[in-house]
């Protein structure tokens, strides 16, 4: 019997109207933006919210994704959250997926959310959602959602030696059992030794009192030392091998918008030509966690991608979690 596959039937992003330039954000955080840093980052501006509107961003993206697929919220079987930044109230007692479920009218659904892994959390969501749809013939649609809003004053990641500038945004992807652009496989590998290389040290059971600790921090030496490109390359070869494919068979690659420097290192490790990877959103959005992958997937979908093309979605998220999904258009 042929294996049932799950496919992407639609996707959408929703970003706040308000934008702020990299130079302004650096100034707000008491930093100077040198030409060298600006070139390394490759980010000119990011979208941002006033106040916490993560749920609203996720709901808007969800409604758009459902509308693009002409699917009613009432038909959704599971809502899967891949947000990384703290939400309106504390996760996991509360999770925005319930609010999204209510807003889109997904009354028969259940909700699931995943924590950790930075941008790779999107691939974790795809992996589990596809598995649930494939394992359960009673399920048809999974709505994957995120709404990431950065902590105010915490947009420059690792101010001492900036790694990225983080924007706000939401995204949603609708998966369908046995239809759409097939998710042929996902490979994930984590290294728990880096569980605290990219995290928020305060605002929870450990360090509950010091506001200075309520911000995303990055251990740059461990970040630099993590085998990001090689781990993704290993995962890519594994997922391609299972499908009887090679890296040369991949037409395009979707990758996060961390920085120009990071994208270049990734492109070189994978031996990709500049036209095989979407880099244009980096300049205008900065890094918006897992939403990057949806934004860049949409840009790709609007390009010259053709039915039957193979694409990879690759990500390294701190945790440390490297992941790759193989999609057939």
């Amino acid at each position, binding site marked *: 019997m042929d294996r049932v596959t799950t496919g992407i039937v639609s996707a959408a992003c929703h970003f706040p109207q308000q934008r702020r330039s990299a130079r302004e954000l650096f100034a707000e955080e008491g930093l100077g933006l040198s030409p060298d840093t600006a070139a390394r980052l490759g980010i000119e501006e990011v979208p941002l919210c006033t106040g916490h509107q993560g749920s609203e961003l996720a709901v808007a993206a969800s409604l758009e994704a459902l509308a693009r697929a002409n699917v009613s919220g009432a038909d959704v079987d599971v809502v899967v959250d891949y947000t990384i930044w703290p939400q309106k109230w504390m996760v*996991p*007692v509360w999770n925005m997926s319930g609010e999204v479920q209510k807003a889109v009218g997904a009354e028969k659904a259940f909700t*699931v959310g995943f*924590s*950790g892994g930075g941008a790779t959390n999107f691939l974790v969501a795809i992996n589990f959602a596809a598995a649930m749809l494939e394992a359960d013939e009673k399920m048809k649609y999974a709505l994957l959602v995120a709404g990431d809003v950065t902590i105010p004053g915490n947009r420059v990641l690792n101010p001492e030696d900036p790694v990225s500038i983080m924007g706000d945004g939401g995204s949603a992807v609708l998966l369908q059992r046995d239809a759409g652009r097939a998710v042929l496989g996902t490979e994930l590998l984590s290294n728990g030794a880096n*569980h605290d290389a990219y995290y928020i040290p305060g605002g929870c059971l*450990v360090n*509950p*009192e010091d506001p200075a600790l309520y911000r995303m921090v990055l251990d740059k030496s461990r970040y630099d030392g993590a085998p990001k490109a090689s781990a993704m390359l290993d995962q890519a070869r594994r997922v391609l091998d299972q499908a009887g494919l090679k890296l040369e068979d991949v037409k395009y690659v979707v990758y996060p918008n961390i920085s120009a420097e990071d994208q270049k290192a990734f492109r070189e490790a994978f031996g990709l030509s500049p036209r095989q990877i979407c880099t244009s959103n980096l300049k205008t959005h900065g890094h918006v966690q897992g939403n990057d992958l949806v934004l860049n997937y949409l840009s790709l979908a609007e390009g010259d991608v053709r039915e039957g093309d193979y694409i990879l979605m690759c990500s390294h998220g701190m945790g440390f979690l490297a992941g790759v999904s193989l999609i057939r258009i």
Partner: protein
Amino acid sequence: MFAKIGILEAAYYLPPKRKPLTEIFRDEKTPETALAANVDFQRDIGIEAVHVAGEESASSVALKACRRVIEKSGIDPKEIDLIMGFTSIPEDYIAPTWSAAGYIQKEIGAARAFATAINTGGCASYQQTLKSVCSLMTTNPKINLALLFAGDKVPALNHNYYPITVVCDGGGAVLLKKNHDRRQILSVDVITAGKLHDVWWVPGFPNRDPNNAKDHSWMHVAGDIGRFNTEVIPTNLFMFRKVIRGALQRAGKKSADVKYYIYPTFSSWDQRAFCRAFTIPPDKVFMDGLQRHGHLQETDMVIDYVDALDEGHIHEGDLVMLVTNGAGFSWGAALVQH
């Protein structure tokens, strides 16, 4: 639906220090909003004392449970393919940015695994986790051994979850193995009522009183007790019926086939209401945990299952249902064939 996936082993850890309920009610304020049930919350709840983690962290109680389950099973942690956290209350560091899954991976040396965590479902997160993990084990030939864990530590002055229960600190861990003939997970059914998402929550650090750093109430659960009484309670048994039927139908079983139930240890009146509504004799539900330790969030499903097994309530050939509800609000039921 699922491949042959069985519970290889399960274990828990409770911190040694106990705090009597008299002291909990002395130290923590009980809201004055009336209960829907005609009971006296403090007198009738049925819990004697709860365990408190004190200086132990949420991650460390989870780690101790993981080490126990690894020791009980005799596996090598390097065999583990997937580590999945299912803690349903705030951990050492803030979620969803962080989960304890990576810490556990590092500490036990599960080098080939990937680690992540479910952050939904409240006390029904165990069933959501079973659904997610069993689906992945079914569809992915490379995922053969999964470690599920939770570690719960509430803030020192937030054990009183009026009007529902009084909570205990502790951790639980479960190993799932593919092609394991015993304790096979036949089916899982879960549902969420997102319209009730804002009945039970924890405000979080941005909602603290910035002028009073010592006030940690932003880490305490907050509930809309009025809506709990008028919207959750009337829905509760209907949703339980739905997931119980769903799990039975998926497995091709009838309710009469179920020999034993694992149900959360919220309160004596809640346990009675469950048995009455589904005409289940009380001796078919593991209830002893209530008096011993009160409610351990999602870990009720692990600790009560382990104790029911160890104390001879579950026998070879029995069909066991693990059923619960949780914040969100979610309901879940899982059928395990012994």
